[in-house]
């Protein structure tokens, strides 16, 4: 069974149609990249999948392991194994990153019917994962994303992803705002999470991220649908030729 199956998905924001019949199938273990010009609806797709409330689905379907995603609350989607790494992670003043992580991990575990992690187990796990992502323990004592550099924010997203053990990871322009070193750390973190039973949807404007996270499938999105699908070579073609050909597509 497909991990993520999106059929003829249509969605609008503030009366404006953004997704206009999008089809996409991600199987377990696959990494898909979605590329496309600005305004093609890439971020909208990620928000609709995660369940942001100001996005209204007007048609089509999206399922995770056969279960209707669109019927679920955002936290239930997270519990079922969907994870969205935000393009612009949100600041939460006064809440230590560590507290946030622990609340999230235990909330998800509870919903999945697992026991909450004990403090020592949790700390051990965080230390291990943080080390892999080159995250300083001190960063975890600071309030969530407050005063974080662009790189710190993105590494924090990947840390959350690693801790929540999702089945389907959606990365929304994770490369934006990263210098090449930070990009490499983040990409390494993602690659470490690649697994037989886990799928990835990597949304990006530029090909450079895909040099580090090599996709199995590359899609081109324009005007709210997938207009072309190919292998990794498609990303290079886009990098060379730009999106001009797709501006009037669809």
């Amino acid at each position, binding site marked *: 069974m497909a991990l993520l199956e999106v059929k003829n998905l249509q969605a609008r924001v503030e009366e404006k149609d953004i997704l206009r019949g999008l089809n996409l199938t991600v199987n377990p273990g696959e990494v898909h990249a979605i590329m496309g010009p600005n305004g093609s609806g890439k971020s909208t797709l990620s928000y609709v999948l*995660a*369940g*942001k*409330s*100001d996005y209204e689905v007007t048609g089509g379907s999206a399922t995770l392991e056969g279960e209707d995603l669109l019927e679920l*609350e*955002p*936290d239930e*989607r*997270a*519990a079922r194994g969907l*994870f*969205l790494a*935000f393009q612009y*992670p*949100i600041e*939460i*003043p*006064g*809440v230590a990153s560590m*507290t*946030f992580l622990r*609340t*999230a*991990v235990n*909330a*998800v575990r509870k*919903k999945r019917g697992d026991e909450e992690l004990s403090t020592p187990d949790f700390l051990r796990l965080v230390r291990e994962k943080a080390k892999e992502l080159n995250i300083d323990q001190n960063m975890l004592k600071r*309030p969530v994303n407050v005063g974080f550099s662009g790189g710190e924010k993105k590494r924090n997203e990947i840390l*959350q992803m690693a801790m*929540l053990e999702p089945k389907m990871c959606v990365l929304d322009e994770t490369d934006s705002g990263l210098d090449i070193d930070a990009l490499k750390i983040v990409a390494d973190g993602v690659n470490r999470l690649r697994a037989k039973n886990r799928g990835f949807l990597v949304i990006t404007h530029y090909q450079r991220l895909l040099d580090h996270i090599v996709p199995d499938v590359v899609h081109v999105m324009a005007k709210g649908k997938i207009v072309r699908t190919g292998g990794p070579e498609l990303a290079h073609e886009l990098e060379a030729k730009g999106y001009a050909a797709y501006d009037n597509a669809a």
Partner: protein
Amino acid sequence: MPAVQETVDRVKSIDVDQYKYGFETKIESDRAPKGLDESTVRFISAKKGEPEWMLEWRLEAFRRWKTMSEPNWARVKVNPIDYQDLYYYSAPKTTAGPKSLAEVDPELLKTYAKLGISLHEQEILAGVDPAGRTKVAVDAVFDSVSVVTTFQEELKKAGVIFGSISEAIKNHPELVKKYLGSVVPVTDNFFATLNSAVFSDGSFVYIPKGVRCPMELSTYFRINERNTGQFERTLIIADEGAYVSYLEGCTAPMRDENQLHAAVVELVALEGAEIKYSTVQNWYPGDAQGKGGIYNFVTKRGDCRGNNSKISWTQVETGSAITWKYPSCILRGDNSQGEFYSIAISNGHQQVDSGTKMIHLGKNTSSRIISKGIAAGVSQNTYRGLVSAHRKATNARNFTNCDSLLIGDKCGAHTTPYIEAKNSSAVFEHEATTSKISEDMLFYCRSRGLSGEEAVALVVNGFVKDVLQHLPMEFAVEAQKLIAISLEGSVG
């Protein structure tokens, strides 16, 4: 449906079931006849077997009160109160005054157990872990009367006097005469004057010179009777070099009508003394239509009478239909310090007008105000504060930080600071922010697996963190839970 609309709908759906302390205890009570005149005052005084001087003090207050009118400057809408339609004294019938635990009506003990207050010393002791968590002595006030005080023996050894004010009037008249009304004068304001005339009980604390009170002291107030006003009077005196930490908690059953609560709290800190006063107020806030709930009109003031003294107020206010309350510090002694840390949460139809006054009179006095107001539902939440420096208050310092957080778009947060500096060396700083819990923040939390309510609780706890850390350890956790409960139903 946009989430903001959901928020509003969920707030609308709040009902009384969410007030988990809304049970009534069936106990026969002994009441004064309805209404208020001199005979009511005499009745109360006689019931309590008070000496003549106390009765005179009350009568003077009552005569004064008749000439006064209710204050109307606060940003609250109050249904007219018929002062003749209230009972001014109600005592559980089986309890004439504080007794040992064995004699207390088991129904009362059950009530307190439901509130999560263990009056049994063993139970309290059982809660003490070997790491040496402090013990808590509790004075429980039911309607108008203090019913039991725990740990009295142990406190006595340290020379600490802790019990009901009625007892203190009988047993320590010299202290009561000297200090009662010395911080909040009988004539102070409408509600304080009313309290002075009809107060029925409350707690009394005296910490002798150089004594550090060996445990947290705590009072729990509960209004049970219908149509009964609760007028408690608390007086805390920390003699030279003494230290005490005191916590009060309040609950009431759910009633359709509004119940009046007009308390007076006076704190006196002599030279080098420190008083830390914490409140967790969870009076019944009324139902979804704004019906019922407690009118909480309270006068709380501390006097840093001696040099190098310190008074610190910490409050977590989640209940009451209307809150009108300004715990204040008079910084009379040189180098004295005043602090006010406040979390005021309003939901449903609640109205809060609360803040503090820091009156700098002595030299090198300093004060600090951290206020966090959280408004949800269709509530109104006002911070009102005064910082003033007298002519002689050289080098007075104040730092004020008022933050407001809005949940939904039907509520209001208001900040009304008054600043008066009559001494040119005074340095007063004021910071204020108002923000809204954004849908983005909630969505971010929810996409990490937190439910809507968990998300709000997490964000709000982050917002109030600076204040929570000033609560005694034992109560910080309780307060955190209370915050989550009072915001239940505030998001979709």
